[in-house]
């Protein structure tokens, strides 16, 4: 199967080409088949490839295919070459499998849209770019995918381009991720200058020989790459674009802004783990950024009223967990959390999309309610997703992936109690807002009448994802419970195993605490939003609490800060210099000439006597010069 590796990104690309060139003339049914079919085929190939990989792993640990030599100049030689090792396969699987489900969902979700073909073309291009990103065997090709997903994200956030707010959100997403990308590009330059190659395997091999641990250059490189990851993965301080990005259609949010693209930063750091390991400083930075982000975004998620914004902040927060895991060196735990998160968060977004559509594009959760019975399938799948998000112990995938992260936040060699406290606080918050979301949307009295119910093309993907949200965790158990660690076994062929501290307390204690905290969060949510709503009413009276709420609602004021700090000065400079100061300079020269001309033309006054006097003065001048 591995000789068809190139088909995995090529099929979506083919879909994109057909849809973008001929999409206008095709029937919607054909478009749906091309759009979802190409991804489905890619998913099928991926699954077959995965089976082959598990049964008879390649000797080098990776399938590689050289497609063509892209360019080579001087020392720099870049090939369009794709590779798939265990890490990549996890990503490919999520991208194609979850992607195919989301595409199937979209065929029904977008059925009334005028630009059906454009939607699927962009989605297919996205899948292709994302696959190139994860399959690239060199950083330039990775960068190609990296920018490609950015473009598709831009196109899809602004899919309904006639609303200025959507375009604004799309631009914002592109600008902010572009800042990260630029930093990453600089990182690549530095890396090339130091190592003379951008081939990932070469870098991984050469870096430990070339750099000493803690070298300034390696730290710089790692931080620059990290900046790229931060931008793409919406981590502190470049997280502000993601909540606004919810302006796109729900499947877009599910695919791009939950399951795949936003985890590209995680992939990058995991892929370049050698560089990060060589630089303890950057590891610490990754962990701290992850911990802070998960906390800050979680707090914001608690008070949002827009269902998709809640999920957006939750995504930021969950990616924060992945960063935290990366930062403490728990590589496979991070990837595993990515894996499960893709399922439950995609599910939540798709279910939210179904709810929103049923309620006539209502986004405010407080205008929903009582959907428990009227939308049975959506309710059940949403429940599975939310439970997984809240990390309900033992029955959900979220628990299996999040619990090790909490454990390693303390227990790994790079771990630290402060990180753990933030993480555990995050777990509490997550459980709380998951409960809040469930209770407000599905319980209580009905506030908006339900419009059209989702059809089978929408519910089937929801159900499959729901099963995934529960079952995906079972391929990796905490060692102390059941010794079944299929996932980390595979991933650790690529990524190093986590190093633990000496003399740690038992892991079980931590698991117990985590479970308790989760239940505490659930209970708090239950009390505040179901059994005793009066408390909340009481809090609403307090001005200080309201101010805090608004502060959290606005995402900790980052938007305003950046607006004042960067956007305004930039706009100011461009506005005052619209006419180009240099132009003024040259026009000044021209004006000076005109003035001189005016001055000199005074002498040309038409009086013959003056002219003769002028001649005389000239003669006098010359003769006087002669005399002197």
């Amino acid at each position: 199967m591995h000789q068809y590796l190139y088909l995995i990104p090529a099929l979506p690309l083919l879909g994109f080409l057909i849809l973008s060139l001929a999409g206008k003339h095709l029937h919607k049914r054909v478009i749906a088949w091309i759009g979802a079919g190409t991804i489905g085929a890619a998913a099928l190939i991926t699954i077959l490839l995965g089976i082959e990989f598990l049964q008879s792993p390649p000797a080098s640990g990776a399938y590689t295919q050289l497609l063509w030599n892209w360019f080579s100049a001087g020392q720099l030689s870049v090939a369009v070459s794709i590779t798939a090792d265990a890490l990549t396969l996890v990503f490919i699987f999520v991208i194609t499998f979850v992607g195919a489900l989301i595409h199937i969902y979209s065929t029904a979700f977008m059925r009334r849209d005028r630009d059906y073909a454009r939607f699927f073309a962009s989605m297919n291009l996205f899948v292709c770019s994302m696959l190139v990103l994860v399959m690239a065997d060199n950083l330039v090709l990775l960068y190609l995918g990296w920018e490609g997903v950015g473009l598709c994200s831009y196109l899809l956030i602004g899919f309904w381009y006639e609303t200025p707010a959507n375009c604004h959100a799309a631009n914002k997403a592109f600008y902010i991720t572009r800042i990260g990308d630029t930093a990453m590009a600089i990182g690549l330059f530095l890396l090339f200058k130091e190592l003379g190659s951008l081939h990932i395997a070469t870098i991984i091999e050469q870096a430990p020989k070339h750099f000493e641990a803690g070298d300034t250059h390696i730290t710089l490189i790692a931080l620059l790459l990290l900046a790229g990851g931060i931008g793409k993965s919406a981590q502190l301080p470049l997280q502000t674009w993601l909540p606004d990005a919810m302006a796109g259609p729900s499947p877009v949010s599910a695919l791009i802004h939950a399951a795949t693209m936003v985890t590209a930063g995680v992939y990058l750091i995991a892929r370049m783990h050698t560089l990060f390991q060589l630089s303890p400083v950057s590891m610490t930075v990754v962990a701290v950024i992850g911990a802070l982000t998960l906390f800050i975004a979680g707090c914001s998620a608690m008070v949002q009223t827009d269902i998709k914004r809640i999920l957006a902040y939750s995504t930021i927060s969950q990616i924060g967990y992945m960063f935290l895991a990366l930062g403490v060196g728990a590589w496979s735990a991070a990837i595993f959390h990515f894996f499960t998160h893709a399922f439950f968060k995609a599910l939540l977004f798709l279910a939210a999309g179904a709810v929103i559509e049923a309620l006539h594009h209502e986004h405010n959760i407080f205008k929903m309610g009582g959907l428990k019975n009227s939308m049975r399938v959506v309710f059940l799948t949403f429940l599975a997703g939310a439970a997984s998000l809240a990390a309900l112990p033992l029955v959900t995938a979220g628990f299996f992936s999040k619990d090790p992260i909490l454990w390693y936040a303390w227990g790994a060699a790079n771990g630290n109690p402060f990180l753990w406290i933030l993480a555990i606080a995050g777990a509490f918050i997550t459980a709380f807002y998951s409960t809040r979301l469930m209770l407000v949307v599905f319980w209580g009295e009905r506030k908006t009448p339900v419009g059209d119910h989702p059809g089978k093309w929408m519910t089937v993907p929801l159900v499959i994802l729901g099963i995934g949200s529960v079952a995906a965790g079972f391929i990796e158990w905490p060692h102390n419970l059941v010794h079944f660690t299929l996932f980390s076994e595979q991933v650790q062929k690529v990524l190093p195993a986590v190093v633990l501290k000496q003399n740690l307390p038992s892991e079980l204690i931590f698991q117990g605490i985590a479970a308790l905290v989760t239940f505490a969060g659930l209970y708090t949510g239950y009390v505040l939003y179901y059994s005793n709503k009066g408390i909340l009413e009481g809090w609403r009276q307090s001005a200080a609490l309201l101010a805090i709420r608004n502060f959290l609602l606005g995402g900790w004021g980052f938007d305003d800060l950046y607006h004042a700090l960067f956007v305004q000065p930039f706009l100011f400079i461009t506005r005052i210099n619209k006419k180009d100061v240099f132009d003024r300079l040259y026009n000044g020269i021209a004006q000076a000439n005109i003035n001189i001309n005016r001055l000199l033309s005074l002498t040309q006054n038409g009086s013959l006597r003056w002219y003769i006097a002028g001649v005389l003065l000239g003669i006098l001048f010359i003769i006087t010069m002669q005399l002197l």
Partner: protein
Amino acid sequence: MPSFTVHTVLIVSAVLFVLGLIGVLTRKNVIFMLISVEIMLNAAGLAFVAAGAKWQQPDGQVMFLFILAMAAAEVSIGLALVLQIYHQHKTLDVENITALKDEAVDEMV
């Protein structure tokens, strides 16, 4: 009476030239200005002849002949112009004949 020198002759021609120049500069009527120009040309011719005499060569006189021809041409054209000016402007006052005055250039920037 001492023999006159080159300087003396040239000073005489300089004085004549300068007088002509004064005439051109101060008079208002074109006719007077033309008269003064003739004086200046004559003075220049004198200087040429003096130089020729000093070297005892014919070149000075040749130059005088050229000046003479030029003066004749100049006077004929000049007087014809005077006639035209008089017919068109009804005056010979140079202060009133300022058609060569420059107009300001139009704004470009």
